[in-house]
């Protein structure tokens, strides 16, 4: 018995060690066989769109045998990681917010003229929406309803998530649209913040929390809500009459492989945008989407209703102005942080 056990123990240990040795050589390269690879770093939600576009890209001349590797997470965090590693092994980036991309420009990783193209560097767009439990049991219709006592909101945290900032600007511009003064807008935001039950790290993690039954209202991107429905999640979403246009910038790094540039060109082409539309993004550029059915949308044949009024980041003076007023860095408390602190104070 003694010998048997001893032998067995040694055999298992040896086997573990051997597997390790065998894979020690292949560890780094086994993902890419022969074709070129585009390494993507992105914010939390465009993975499905990129995958759909990549499948179409593979059918083109430039995209044959190209493989992809994507890292997706909270926009600000992803941007910081790229800078912290000097863009090593990163070819293409797509962020929720412009400042996350300009950080790379400042670090010298992305060319200054990244936004010189016809879409000003924007690769995908969407709008801020309100998602509810299936059937909308609370009867939520507009941003106003979010101040109700029975509402428990799940939203990403602006500290790390770009999505969160879009949502908050949607709320703010809604209040202003209805003639609120700055003080009244602040009061409105505070009332909504007081109803937030979860501040998730990223847009995707917010969806995840909502799926797990936390809260009864989710503030999110339209495409994220459509994607969730495509994946069979039980939720509904409302595109409010007034909302905010979400524009996600993307760029190729200076020393990326040339195929990454082909990839970016493809994303902006009609075929690329069609792939994004199929995953719930609104098209950038002048793609005609009549005839494209978007599964998961409220009306698949007319997936993207035009809101009566749509605010944009440019309306508020652009992202540097917005960040300087609202969202502090490094623990600095600006307008949002103060409202948030007051609203959640206990």
């Amino acid at each position, binding site marked *: 018995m003694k010998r048997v056990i001893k032998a067995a123990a040694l055999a298992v240990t040896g086997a573990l060690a051997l597997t390790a040795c065998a894979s*020690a050589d292949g560890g*780094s390269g*086994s993902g890419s066989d022969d074709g070129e*690879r585009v390494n993507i770093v992105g914010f939390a939600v465009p993975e499905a769109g990129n995958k759909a576009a990549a499948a179409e890209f593979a059918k083109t001349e430039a995209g044959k045998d190209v493989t992809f590797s*994507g*890292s997706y997470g909270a926009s600000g965090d992803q941007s910081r990681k790229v800078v*912290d*590693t*000097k863009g090593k092994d990163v070819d293409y980036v797509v962020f929720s917010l412009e400042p996350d991309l300009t950080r790379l420009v400042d670090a010298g990783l992305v060319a200054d003229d990244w936004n010189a193209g016809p879409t000003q560097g924007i690769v995908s767009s969407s709008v801020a929406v309100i998602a509810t439990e299936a059937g909308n049991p609370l009867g939520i219709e507009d941003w106003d309803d979010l101040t109700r006592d029975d509402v428990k909101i799940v939203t990403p945290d602006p500290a790390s998530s770009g999505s969160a900032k879009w949502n908050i600007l949607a709320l703010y511009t809604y209040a202003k649209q209805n003639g609120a003064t700055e003080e009244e807008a602040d009061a409105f935001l505070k009332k909504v913040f007081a109803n937030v039950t979860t501040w998730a790290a990223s847009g995707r993690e917010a969806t995840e929390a909502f799926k797990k039954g936390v809260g009864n209202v989710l503030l999110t991107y339209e495409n994220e809500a459509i994607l969730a429905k495509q*994946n069979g999640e039980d939720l509904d979403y409302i595109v409010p009459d007034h909302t905010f246009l979400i524009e996600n910038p993307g760029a190729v790094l200076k020393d990326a492989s040339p195929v990454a540039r082909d990839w970016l060109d493809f994303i902006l082409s009609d075929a690329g945008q069609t792939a994004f539309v199929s995953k719930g993004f609104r098209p950038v550029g002048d793609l005609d989407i009549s005839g494209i059915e978007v599964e998961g949308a409220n009306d698949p044949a007319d997936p993207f209703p035009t809101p009566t009024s749509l605010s944009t980041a440019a309306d508020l003076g652009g992202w540097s102005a917005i960040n300087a007023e609202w969202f502090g860095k490094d623990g600095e408390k600006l307008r949002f942080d103060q409202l948030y602190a007051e609203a959640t104070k206990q």
Partner: protein
Amino acid sequence: MADTRQIRARKGPVTYLLRAFVIAYLAVLVIWPLFEVAQQTFAPADVGDEGGVGAFWERLSDPSVTYAFNLTVTVAFWAVLINTLFGVGISLLLVRYQFPGRRILSVLVDLPMSVSPVVVGLALVLAYSTGKGWFGEALASVGFYVIGTTPGLIMATAFVSLPLVIREIVPVLEEIGADAEMAAHSLGANGWQTFRRITLPSIKWAVVYGVVLSMARSLGEFGAVKIVSPGAEFRGETATLLIQNRYTNYEEPTAYAAAFVLVLASVLALVVVSLIRKEDHS
């Protein structure tokens, strides 16, 4: 073991009550959840889909999943190798040699066990990231990157499992004493001979436990790796990161399949350790 005592123990109602309580507690806290995971792993993803072992294999043979497991095993292998060499060396030094600072060092080597994995990741980033780390720029200028690369993953993993080997060897070294080593020494054996012929055989099993424990810990490291790794498919996504990514990305079946493999690996490690413990005692 303590068989005679157990026979002598009085078996009143309290004994049975406690036994029932412990079984129920462990069943609810550990066994039942594990059973649920196994069930989820082999359940069909959708109504009408194929479930069972076939689907399980299919999910695991996806290239990104095999890459993740490959990377995990590679990282664990190097981390364990480094920890074993370091652990044996430092244990010998701590137990057998006199040097200033020995006590402080013996306390410090225990530290990594109690440090939060998130803090480990943060510490490595603050020391070695190219952007803000203390030494990142210097290392980058010679073309060496720690954060976002496999060496970084190995360092994070080695950090968290550092004391496991030492903890096993030190008590054994203390127990056996240095008499045999001194005798060998006085008979003219050199350091290496003494180590190989005298010390190593007596600490052999302690080293094996340490290795198996470190292996189990390394395969499953999550927090520190999450912060250090780029976490992309085919690029730094280890098995544990894959589980989180897939779970949050509408691919729960794959997450459960990968989790099940890690459950099996850790149970296997436990059984191996439990067997060699028994062996060592007899």
